């Protein structure tokens, strides 16, 4: 279109126009990616806040601040217990958490306890008929509404069903809404 119609307009200096046209094109190259980034920013942020993407590896016995508290792997034990499907194993993972910020409904929103094996497979908690949590251990959801105060130490844990061949490499992990996309991945307790 332009090629046909521009020469109709009287241009004082064709060199100047050419220069501006080139500048315009260059500006496009910068502005288009910027616009794309601007429009997708919210979606990307929303997505990052919903996913446990980046692991922080924590040594066994170490206590780390996470989501307004300090988390430490207390125990990881497995066995054949309760009613399980063929070739499956029951695992209980527990963490001790010292609360600093008592607003757990905000800090622990979307709290997720997981087991992750060497291949990256993830298991979420399951209800196992005949296997309950040990006394004094609560799952994430009830911990959020437990009314824990700053300084309190609570034990959070859950039960999992995993296939037998994953037992050797699983590591417990924790994801919290206020910390995503980062999550904690704990080393297994030494044998």
């Amino acid at each position, binding site marked *: 279109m332009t090629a*046909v119609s521009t020469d109709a307009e009287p241009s004082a200096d064709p060199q100047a126009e050419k220069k501006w046209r080139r500048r315009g094109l260059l500006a496009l190259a910068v502005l288009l990616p910027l616009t794309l980034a601007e429009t997708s920013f919210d979606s990307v942020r929303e997505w990052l806040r919903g996913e446990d993407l980046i692991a922080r590896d924590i040594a066994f016995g170490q206590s780390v601040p996470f989501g307004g508290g300090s988390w430490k792997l207390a125990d990881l034990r497995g066995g054949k217990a309760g009613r399980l499907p063929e070739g499956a194993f029951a695992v209980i993972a527990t963490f001790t958490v010292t609360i600093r910020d008592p607003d757990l409904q905000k800090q622990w929103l979307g709290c997720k306890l997981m087991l992750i094996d060497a291949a990256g497979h993830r*298991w*979420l908690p399951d209800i196992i008929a005949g296997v309950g949590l040990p006394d004094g251990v609560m799952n994430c959801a009830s911990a959020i509404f437990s009314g824990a105060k700053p300084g309190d130490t609570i034990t959070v844990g859950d039960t999992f069903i995993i296939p037998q*061949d994953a037992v050797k490499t699983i590591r417990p992990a924790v994801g919290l809404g206020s910390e995503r996309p980062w999550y904690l991945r704990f080393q297994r307790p030494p044998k």
Partner: protein
Amino acid sequence: MKIRVLGNLAILAATVALSYGMQVTKPHYADLTAPLPVDGAMGKRVHARSFDVRLEKVVFARQLKTNQFGQEKLLTTSGLWAVATTSLTATDASTTVADGTWQGPTDLRYNQTERLGYRQDMPPHGVDPGLGKLGLFVFEVPPDQIRGAKLLIAARRFGPLDAQARISLDGVRTGPDGQPADILPQYDLDAPPRDQGPQDQGPQGPAQETRP
């Protein structure tokens, strides 16, 4: 002068033609964001994005017996009950598989029934990596929507651009009238029949309805 006018007209015409072509060939928004089908056959493992599914068997019955809140219920239908048994497993992470659709030979879509209430073996099925699980999908379908049908299984009902297993039901034996060869008079969800032989030689055609 004349050439410029002609040139402009040509460009205008080309633009109109291109725009019109783009408009008429534009795919539906619904198609653009539709689930991505993964085709498979009965008895074969179908790999969807977040889960694997294998359709083990489909049983047809005129009545469905179920236990609801400790109360036995006998459910009738104006068509047939189709009970699809699948074995499910998660690929990478624990997830749920919630949606089953019966797609008839002419693409009519029958959602899974809502008349059964909550049951352990009914969707949503919680599935874990490395662990198999049997899950049922139960449909009400007219007898003429069985031959050439497909079973669609997805993680959730509206999953734009997520995978959807599409399993053709070629393993279902049908008679010359298109109806399934075996129709049980009754299927007890809490005590499924073990053998899959021809059990019902009852009258073909629309089920005689009896009120529970």
